[in-house]
Every structure is written in C-alpha cells, then in structure tokens.
C-alpha cells in the first residue's frame, strides 16, 4: 500500500516538477522561439478558452471521435468476416497488407485531390488510417480463439450469432483492445496532419498557421493543447479498457503473482 502511494506521488510529482522547471527556466527567456511559459499559458487561455473552442477544438475532437468510431466499427466487423470467411480472407488479406504498409499521412494529399479540403476529407483520412490496426488485431484475435472454447460452443449447440457475440467477441477482446489503442494514436496523428495539410480549421491548422505567421507563443499553446488531448484520450481509453476487460487484467495479474 505504502509503495503504491509512493509510486503514485512519483507519477504525479515528476510531470509537475518538469512544468515548474519549464516555468522558472523560461521566465526570463528572451529567445523568440522559446517564450516564457507564462506567456504561452496566457495565449493558451486566450486562444482555446474559449475563443476558438467551438470553432476549432470541438471540430477537431468531433472529427477524431467520429472517424475513430467508424474505424472501430468497420475494423471489428470486417475483421470478423475476414477471420471467418475463407474467401474474404484470400481476397482481402493481400490488399490489407499493402494498404497498411503506406504511412497513413501519405494518403492525405490523395484525398485532398480527390475530395477536396472539406470535413469529409479529414474524416475519411482518419477513418481509413485508424481502420487497419483494429482490423488486423481483430482478425488475429478471432483466429487465435482457443479450439477448446469452439468445441464447447459446438457441444452446447450455440447458434452462429451466439458464438459471435458471446464467445468470439469476448475471447478476442484483449486483442481487439490493443488494436483499438494503436488505432486511437493513429487517428490522432492523422487528425492533426489532415488539418495541417488540407484545412484552415482545427487545432492542427491553427498551430501551423501560428508558426507560419511567426506567432511562436500561439504555436506553443497549440502544441500544449495537442499534448493534453493526446494524454487525456489515452488515459480515458485505459480506464474504459480496464473496466471492460477487468477479467483479463485480473487473470493476468493473478498469473504474475502466482
């Protein structure tokens, strides 16, 4: 218990210490590219709380969330089909491995030329890029469902639907979750990249614009916000994952201590 408390305070204390260090070291800075933290925070408040909050922050977050949700649904659904329908596997497997080899950001210029600079382009980029990690993890997860569990489902004559929902999906859950976590990071990267490359709206676009207009404090404020969003998104994901996969987390912990 005591050790846990120490670990916690280290985990919270170290970042706070770094921020304090940044604050003091930068307080007298006259370097244009490294403005004092106090000024960055002032700009942060002026920009994001709440001048551009609805117009840019919410817009970015909405794209991220929507694109990610679509990628998850399509990834898991398609993953089931590829893992369970041999024909689909033969047709789609090479295609998937080709497309996932392309860095997602490289697709953004193609989408810009195909469908322009709109929200649809950004949404499509995010969805497509975030699709592959979840898809591949789902296929892996379902293919590695224990044959013992499959036999049990057969002996108790579960229907196809019952097998999918009550056996395959939970059994592949840990795999799917790790895929979804990677997808989340990719979605975040592509969200920013798509805004920087093909938009005048959103956090990414604003940050790049600030840099190009030599508003260095604004640029730093943008980076700070992106860091906070990325951190919060991952934290939220972990919390949900640990709740949904409590059985998995628990059994792993028990296996470690046993």
């Amino acid at each position, binding site marked *: 218990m005591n050790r846990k408390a120490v670990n916690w305070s280290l985990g919270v204390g170290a970042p706070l210490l770094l921020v304090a260090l940044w604050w003091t070291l930068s307080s007298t800075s006259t370097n244009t590219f490294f403005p004092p933290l106090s000024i960055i925070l002032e700009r942060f408040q002026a920009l994001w709380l709440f001048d551009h909050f609805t117009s840019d922050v919410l817009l970015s977050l909405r794209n991220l969330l929507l694109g990610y949700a679509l990628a998850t649904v399509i990834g898991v659904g398609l993953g089931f089909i590829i893992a369970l329908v041999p024909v689909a596997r033969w047709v789609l497997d090479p295609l998937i491995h080709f497309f996932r080899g392309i860095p997602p950001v490289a697709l953004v210029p193609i989408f810009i030329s195909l469908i322009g600079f709109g929200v649809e382009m950004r949404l499509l980029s995010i969805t497509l890029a975030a699709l592959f990690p979840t898809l591949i993890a789902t296929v892996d997860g379902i293919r590695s469902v224990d044959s013992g569990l499959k036999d049990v489902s*057969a002996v108790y*004559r579960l229907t196809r639907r*019952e097998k999918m929902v009550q056996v395959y999906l939970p059994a592949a859950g840990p795999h799917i979750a790790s895929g979804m976590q990677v997808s989340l990071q990719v979605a975040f990267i592509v969200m920013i990249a798509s805004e920087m490359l093909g938009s005048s709206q959103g956090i990414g676009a604003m940050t790049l614009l600030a840099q190009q207009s030599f508003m260095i404090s604004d640029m730093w404020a943008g980076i700070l916000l992106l860091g906070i969003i990325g951190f919060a998104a991952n934290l939220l994901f972990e919390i949900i994952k640990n709740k949904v996969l409590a059985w998995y987390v*628990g*059994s792993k912990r028990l296996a470690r201590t046993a």
Partner: protein
Amino acid sequence: MAEANVSSDATVRLRVDGLAKSYGTGDKAKVVIEDLTFTVNAGEMVCIVGPSGVGKTTLLKCLAGLQPATRGQASIDGRTISGPPPEMALVFQDYNRSLMPWLTVRKNLMLPLRHLRLPAAEAKERCDSALEAVGLSHAEHQYPWQLSGGMQQRVAIARALAYRPEILIMDEPFASVDAQTRFDLEDLCLKIRQDFGMTILVVTHDIDEAVYLSDRVVVLGSKPAKVLKIVDVDLPAPRDQITTRSLPEFARQRTDVLSLIKRPA
C-alpha cells in the same frame, strides 16, 4: 449383432458400430481408430480405458458430433450422430480451455441455458442445484481463473449438469487434479448418475478409476484403436472409496483389465 454381455432387457442408448477414423487420405492417411463397436445402455456408467495416445479423445469427438467418422457410425436411440446431439453434454479434459474466463462461474453455467431459452426461474433453479451438487454455491460470483484446478473442473461438470443432458460424456475429467480431489469428483460422478439418472460415458487412462466407477469397462488396445474386451464390473452398488477399493473382487477386476492392457499386442 448385439453384444453378448448386454442383458436383453436393457435399452441401448448409445451405439458405436464399426466406427473408424483416419486423418488425411490415400497413402498419407493416418488411421487413429480402426474398428470400434460397443454399446452403452440407458442409465449405465461405462468407462473407456486404454493407453494414452490410443485415440480416446478422437472417439469422443466423433461421439459428440464434433468430427465425422471415416467409416461406420455412432448413434443415439438409433439416430446416427452427424452433429452435436441435443441430449448430450461433454466435459472436456482441459478445464482451462473449456470455461469462459470472462464469465463468472454462474454466467458460465448460464451460457448454454440462455441458448435453451428457458424461463428465468427454471434457469436459475438449474444453476443453483448444479452448483450445489458440485459444492460450489459459494463461488458463483468468482471467475474460473480465481479457482483451483479441481474447482474449475467442478464448474465444467456443473455446467454440464445444469444443461440436464440425458447422456454425459467426460474426457479424462480428473486427469489434472490432485488425488483427494479426484476421489471427490469420482464420487460426485456416481452421485450424479443416481440423482439425475444420466447415462454416463467416461474416458480415462486410470484403470482403478474405471473399475471403481463403471458398470462396464470398454478396454481399448492400440494402435490404431480397437476394442480388446468389454469387462462387466460386478461390484456392490453403493460404492465407497475405502470399502469398494479394498474388496478382493475389485483387485481381481483391475488385474483383469490391467493384464489386457499390459499384454503385448
């Protein structure tokens, strides 16, 4: 056709008739089971013994309709088994891989029952009585991985009980539990048969266990598997781990079976 040692008035529930199973085809075919013929009567407890690797698990998979036979057939009440039969439940050897780790004990029991679309009250009653029969009422909200091996196997047995099969098949169900648990589980089997009137077929490599449990022992020889002999076990009815096992008759029966298996093919 009928087995010589089956009394004429008993009803045959499960019939295995010239069953053969091989994997692969042509020259590369690997024959696992050559030619098996035996029957199990209604309400009977039959054990199948044989050296490990003789194809006992393959046989059970054919009986459970998980794999098709290459030749011959298995039938229940005269109907050929071509898929998992509704009146049958199977307890697997490896409890680790047969319980759903994401479900609590009770929910593991409920999974097959949900498929049967039973009224909630009946499903609950079946779960309660099955858990009580295996002595795990206190563990219903725990996950399988929180339990010991013996307890997990009891959960798997309880799941089969709650399903209320007419025929229960068990594949080396006590192979990976300690000796004391093993005795308890054997007695649990005998109690199940008495309480639920099930027809039970147990595969084991433990000859003592086979003699202790069975009305008849089917002795398999290797390889490929064929029936060496079907031994009637005439031990008095309420069997007891201490008194039954110390009977001279018990020693004689187990020697009979053992010498069949030990004899060079």
